[in-house]
C-alpha cells in the first residue's frame, strides 16, 4: 500500500505539452459551482467574492496559509455553513438558501474527511465506517461485507472492532477516509487530510486519495497547506498493476488535478500546476518559495 518513494521537498515538474496544462473536465457541467460567495463571522469577512467550479472527475486542490478560510470554504461546499452572499450550486441544485431537511439527503451523496477525522468516540470502527449504511437500514451482513471492503481499501481491516481512542492519528484519518468512501459518493471533500501527520503516514493518505481519484474518478476538493502533498497528488497516478502509487514520467502531471489558492479571504489563483508555477502573483510566489 505504501508509495514507491518518500516525498522530499517539492520538485517542480517541467511542463509537458501533451498531458499538462489542459483540463479535459473544464468544459463539462460542473458538479459544484461557487458564484461570488462571501461569508463573515461576527462582522469580519472570512471569504469575499469567491468564484470557482469543480467539473466531473476533477480534483481541485485548495492551497493557502493557515487561517485564510480554507476549511470554511470546504464547509460551504456541502451546506454545513451558509454564505451571506452569492450562489452555490451542488449537483445542479442551489444550496445557499436550501432548508436543512432538503440538504441532508443531498449530503449523503458527498463524502467528507474532516481535519482530525471526527470519528464518533462512542462507536466502534465498524459502526463509524457504516454510519450512513446503518441510517439507511442496510442489512447487517451487507454492512459487515462493505465495511471490510472499505477497511481493506485503506489497509486497516484489523481495526474492525476497535474503538477510535485505541487508534493512532494516521489510522483515525484512514478510518475517516473509509467512512467517506463506503457509500461510493458522487463527490469527496478532504479537509487537511495529512495535517499533523508524519511524512510516511501522509504519503499513505495521499496514496489513498490518488487511488480513489484514479480508480473511481470521483470529483473532489482537497484543502491543504502542504505543498509537497499537493504536488505529489498532481505528479503521481495509481497503478492497478502494481497496486501502489507511481510517479508520472518526468514533467507529466494529472490533467484533472488543478489548483486554487486563497489569501485573506479572496481567491488569488485558479489554474493548473504549470500555471501555478509560472504565476507572477507575489503571494503565490512567496507561498511556493
Amino acid at each position, binding site marked *: 500500500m505504501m508509495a514507491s518513494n518518500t516525498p522530499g521537498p517539492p520538485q517542480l515538474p517541467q511542463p509537458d505539452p501533451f498531458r499538462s496544462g489542459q483540463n479535459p473536465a473544464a468544459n463539462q457541467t460542473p458538479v459544484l459551482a461557487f458564484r461570488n460567495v462571501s461569508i463573515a463571522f461576527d462582522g469580519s469577512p472570512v471569504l469575499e467574492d469567491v468564484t470557482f467550479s469543480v467539473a466531473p472527475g476533477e480534483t481541485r486542490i485548495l492551497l493557502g496559509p493557515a487561517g485564510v478560510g480554507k476549511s470554511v470554504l470546504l*464547509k460551504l461546499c*456541502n451546506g*454545513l455553513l451558509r454564505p451571506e452572499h452569492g450562489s452555490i450550486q451542488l449537483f445542479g441544485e442551489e444550496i445557499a438558501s436550501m432548508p*436543512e*431537511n432538503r440538504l*441532508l*439527503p443531498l*449530503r*449523503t451523496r*458527498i463524502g*467528507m474527511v*474532516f*481535519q*482530525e477525522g*471526527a*470519528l*464518533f*468516540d462512542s462507536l466502534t470502527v465498524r459502526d463509524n465506517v457504516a*454510519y*450512513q449504511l446503518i*441510517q439507511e437500514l442496510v442489512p447487517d451482513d451487507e454492512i459487515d461485507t462493505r465495511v471490510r471492503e472499505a477497511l481493506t481499501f485503506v489497509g486497516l481491516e484489523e481495526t474492525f472492532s476497535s474503538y477510535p481512542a485505541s487508534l493512532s492519528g494516521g489510522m483515525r484519518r484512514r478510518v475517516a477516509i473509509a*467512512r467517506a468512501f463506503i457509500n461510493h459518493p458522487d463527490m469527496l471533500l478532504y479537509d487537511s487530510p495529512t495535517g499533523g501527520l508524519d511524512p510516511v503516514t501522509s504519503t499513505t493518505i495521499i496514496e489513498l486519495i490518488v487511488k480513489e481519484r484514479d480508480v473511481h474518478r470521483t470529483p473532489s476538493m482537497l484543502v491543504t497547506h502542504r505543498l509537497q502533498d499537493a504536488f505529489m497528488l498532481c505528479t503521481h497516478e495509481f497503478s492497478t498493476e502494481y497496486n501502489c502509487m507511481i510517479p508520472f514520467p518526468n514533467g507529466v502531471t494529472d490533467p484533472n488535478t488543478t489548483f486554487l489558492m486563497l489569501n485573506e479571504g479572496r481567491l488569488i489563483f485558479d489554474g493548473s500546476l504549470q500555471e501555478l508555477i509560472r504565476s507572477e502573483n507575489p503571494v503565490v510566489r512567496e507561498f511556493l518559495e
Partner: protein
Amino acid sequence: MAIISIERTAKQLVLTIQDYSVFAWRAFMNLFTEPRYWSEYLIQSDIIGVGSTAIVLLSGFFTGGVLALQSAATLSQFGATAVTGQFVGITMIRELGPVLTGIMVAGRNASSMASELGSMVVTEQIDAMRALGVDPMRKLVTPRIFACISMLFFLTIVADAFGIIGGGAVTVFLNHQDGTQYFSKAWESLRYPDIIQGLVKPLFSGYIIASVGCFYGLRTTGGTQGVGRSTIQAVVNSSVLIILVDFLLTRVLLAFFPPL
C-alpha cells in the same frame, strides 16, 4: 461604557432566549415526524432513568427524614406530632419530591448532556453527523428530551415513596412514635389533586433539563474551555428554570385545585 455593556448583555440575553425557544420548539416537533430514533430513546432512558435512581432514592429518603425531624420538633409544641405523616407525605408529593428530583437529575444529566454534545461540537463530530446526512436535532436532542421527561416522571414517584419511607424511619427509630399512625396519616391525607400537582411538574422539569443541557452543548465554542463553560451554564440555568417554572406551575395548579 457601562450603558454599552448593559445594552450588549441585554441583546445577548434576548438573542439566547429567542434561540432557545426555536431550539426547544424544533426538538419537540421532531417527535411528530419521521425519522424517529427509538433505540437512542431507550439508551438515553437507561442513562437518565436507571443511572439517576441511586441519587434520587438517597436524596428522597434523607429529605423525608429531615422533614420528619424538623416537623416533629415544631408539631410537638402544639401536641400535634400525630400529623407528621400527613406533613411529610403532602410536602414530598406536592413540592419537594418533584423539585428535588428535578434539581438532582439536572445536576447529573444536564451537565452530562452539555459536556457530551459540547465535546462532539469541538471535535467536529456534529458536523460529521450532518455531513453524513443525519440531523443532530433528531438523533441527539429529541430522544434525550423525551427520555428525560418520561424518566423524571418515574423518578419523582421513587423520590416521593422513599421520602415518605425516610420520614417513617425517622418517626419510628429517632422520634419513637407509632409507625402505623405515621403511614396511615400520610395515606389518608392524600387527595388526587396533590398527586396530579406532583406528577405534572416533572413533565416540565424533564423538558427543561434535557432541552437546556442540549442547547448549551450544541452552541459550545472555544474548545475544551468552552465545554466547561457550557456545562456550568446548563446546570445553573436548568436548576433556576426548574424552580421558576415550579413556582409558576404551583400558582396555576392551586387555582385549578384550591386547598381544602
